[in-house]
């Protein structure tokens, strides 16, 4: 996955993501594609969660999946999560759950719960950073005011790091793939460098939903695992999604 929160020169927050899923889950030799990624594409739906006939939050989801990976609470915050691989991974959390230790929360249930119940950017950040989880994760959170954007790097127990927007320091965007931002990505899977190169070339003055889509459309940020691209703008509550293809030649991940 690749997620970006960017602040334009007027202080508007933009949030975009590519959802990549299906690595090593069957390769279709004929079509040169991942079987699971292709099977997931027709399941992508946009959902408007309403209570008392009013929108509470919106999300891009897979039909049949009740947790959330991508969503927006209009006028308050936007949220995406990226997978964080670790030996202390979710299978240990599942084993603990089965053995009766149930004080952790399932990742996608937490994101849904935050989208449904958090009352502000700060409240969402605190819940995402402090709730014990069954699996490690990266949470990418955007807000509605200048400086409100961050990457929360989570282990199952702790918040390991919080990287926030800081325009005064020149950090007008935060970008996360599937590696800790303070370490180099795996050399065979470096989507961070091309994505940051394109963000830097775009510049803060020219960042928009349109140019964010351009960045997320550049290979290998766009790759054979990319199922959908979602673009969100908290200030107007807008969420739009597109199902993607990556024509050959294209990286398998």
């Amino acid at each position, binding site marked *: 996955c690749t997620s970006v929160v960017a602040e334009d020169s007027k202080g508007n927050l933009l949030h975009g993501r590519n959802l990549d899923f299906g690595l090593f889950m069957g390769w279709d030799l004929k079509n040169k594609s991942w079987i699971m990624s292709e099977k997931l594409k*027709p399941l992508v739906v*946009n959902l*408007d969660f309403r209570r008392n006939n009013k929108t509470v939050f919106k999300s891009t989801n897979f*039909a049949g999946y009740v*947790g959330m990976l991508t969503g927006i609470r209009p006028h308050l915050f936007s949220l995406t999560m990226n997978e964080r691989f*670790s030996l202390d991974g979710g299978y240990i959390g599942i084993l603990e759950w*089965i053995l009766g230790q149930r004080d952790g929360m399932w990742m996608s*249930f937490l994101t849904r719960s935050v989208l449904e119940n958090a009352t502000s950017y700060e409240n969402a950040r605190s819940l995402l950073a402090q709730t014990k989880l069954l699996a*490690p994760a990266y949470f990418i959170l955007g807000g509605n005011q200048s400086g409100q954007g961050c990457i929360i790097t989570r282990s199952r127990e702790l918040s390991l790091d919080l990287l926030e927007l800081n325009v005064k320091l020149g950090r007008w965007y935060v970008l996360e793939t599937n590696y800790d931002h303070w370490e180099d990505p795996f050399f065979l899977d470096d989507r961070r460098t091309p994505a940051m190169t394109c963000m830097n070339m775009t510049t803060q003055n020219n960042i928009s939903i349109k140019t964010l889509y351009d960045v997320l459309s550049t290979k290998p940020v766009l790759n054979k695992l990319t199922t959908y691209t979602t673009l969100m703008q908290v200030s107007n509550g807008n969420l739009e999604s*597109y199902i993607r293809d990556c024509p050959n030649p294209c990286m398998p991940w």
Partner: protein
Amino acid sequence: QFIPPYTEDCRTDMYPPKGPTFRSTVSWYTIDLDLPPHKRWTSVIKDKKKDLDDMIQAVRDLAKAFVPSGRLIELVDISLPLMLNTLPNPFRDEIKGIASDSGIPLGEITLFNIFYEVFTV
């Protein structure tokens, strides 16, 4: 670049989405949080039943590739419904509603819903 990692110059003018990297737009559905959890996903599943079935079949095929006897999916069908009963609501009842609406075994729908935790290694 025609050798891996197939990097390219930063794309421009891709929006509005079009061309070979764009497959389709995404349909909108409403989830009414005032409905009982087991009824919330009915309209989505009604439209996506076949696609959901296709995806779950791909998971079954994958499991059979690893364990040809079919015991892995048997284990999923037997054990995961037991674990589902330990999941918090409204998630538990929503998952039960999806299994009921789609006709797909409860354990397999539960597996789909805990994919993330399973695949973080």
